[in-house]
């Protein structure tokens, strides 16, 4: 297991704050090529853009896998997904986020066909949504998004909104949010990976190019202890709170506290502070430290309650 590339504490804090980690062009070329060969060519269904790709999927080499399968047993050794998951960066990042025992939830080959024929229906982007269903847990699943070939802006790419992962919403109930300040579109080289907290709001872009776009997603969950699983040995929480609001110099960069209290551009002026509080709660969960705080946001509430002041 020494080959695992575990996340640093600051990278974990970034994931907690923004709900994603992105690694560009980290999957070797031969795995990308093998994956594209195993995925095969996906033709446009007879029903047009809205049609199912099930027939094409039946012919490709990506297996059906039962939900709940231990990740180690999900893919045949030597296949592209197995080789991808064995990469030290991938295995280390997944272990950091989910702990050593990981279970397969589902995977899907996302295919966005080019806009060749307008008579087959409008070529639309996917509405903004949060995957699965309302999920009230503090624990989280990880969605590994794998881009096996180069994605240009006109190919659409995955659109996602950093920092939305801690909002409890009901899947496509957020479809009305067409555009959000700070949204990102995945434009990348082949072999790029996105590790998403399951709650991040996202959607597929419309493919306006003349090439089919593929993205392979694997959803994974912790089967055992999820916490303190990254390279945490050097981490020490601060022994005192720093000054807040009235400051004579900028806050120190690259500290957990600064990362957890950095806003996203779409934050509302009141709920942005609640976002900080929910990030701090998630950091408490991951570090197993019920007293951790950044900039006094939870201490202000906790200490009053502890003193019996309600």
């Amino acid at each position, binding site marked *: 297991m020494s080959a695992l590339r575990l996340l640093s504490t600051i990278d974990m804090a970034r994931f907690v704050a923004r709900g994603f980690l992105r690694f560009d062009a980290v999957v070797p070329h031969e795995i990308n090529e093998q994956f594209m060969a195993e995925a095969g060519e996906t033709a446009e269904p007879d029903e047009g853009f809205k049609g199912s790709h099930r027939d094409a999927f039946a012919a490709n080499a990506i297996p059906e896998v039962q939900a709940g399968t231990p990740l180690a047993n999900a893919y045949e050794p030597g296949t592209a997904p197995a080789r991808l998951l064995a990469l030290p960066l991938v295995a280390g990042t997944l272990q950091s986020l989910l702990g050593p025992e990981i279970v397969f939830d589902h995977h899907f080959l996302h295919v966005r066909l080019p806009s060749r024929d307008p008579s087959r229906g*409008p070529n*639309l*982007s*996917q*509405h*903004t949504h949060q995957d699965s269903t309302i999920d009230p847990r503090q624990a989280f699943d990880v969605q590994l998004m794998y881009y096996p070939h180069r994605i240009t802006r006109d190919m*659409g790419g995955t*659109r996602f909104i950093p920092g939305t992962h*801690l*909002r*409890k*919403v009901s899947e496509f*109930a*957020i*479809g*009305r*949010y*067409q*555009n*959000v*300040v700070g*949204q990102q*579109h995945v434009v990348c080289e082949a072999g790029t990976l996105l590790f998403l907290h399951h709650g991040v709001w996202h*959607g597929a*872009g*419309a493919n306006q190019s003349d090439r089919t776009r593929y993205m392979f997603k694997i959803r994974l969950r912790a089967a055992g202890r999820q916490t303190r699983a990254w390279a945490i040995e050097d981490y020490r929480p601060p022994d005192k709170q720093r000054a807040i609001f009235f400051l004579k110099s900028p806050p120190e960069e690259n500290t957990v506290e600064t990362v957890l209290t950095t806003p996203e*551009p*779409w*934050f*509302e*002026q*009141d*709920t942005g502070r*609640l*976002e900080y*509080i*929910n990030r701090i709660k998630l950091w408490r969960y991951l570090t197993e430290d019920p007293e951790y705080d950044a900039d006094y946001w939870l201490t202000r509430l906790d200490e009053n309650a502890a003193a019996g002041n309600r």
Partner: protein
Amino acid sequence: MARSPLGKSMKLPKLKGNRKARLTNPRQKVLVLYLANSALDAPVVAWALYDGSGERLHMAGDEDSPPYKTGLDALREGWRLFQASQIQPHVRGEELDLSYLKYEFFFERICEAVV
């Protein structure tokens, strides 16, 4: 007329005195703005556009910059506000929970249908 950040599709019907120009096939355009707080002059943090005239098909992810900086800017451009979200009290025990964007404003303008 002030320059519209959305181009021709955002131009108002021409006015003659206090009377609006007659439209033979009037259609509704709807603009939804999500603001940073409950004030109409607060900054836009998210938005959506639906064009019933058929001139343009808007969709998720089609723009990265908001059409207006604030809700008030949309009013100044001729959009008519017809609905605003209420400011709701917080449910006891769920005060720190977050879900949907809070400050939603619906605007409309009536345009000629594009055949």
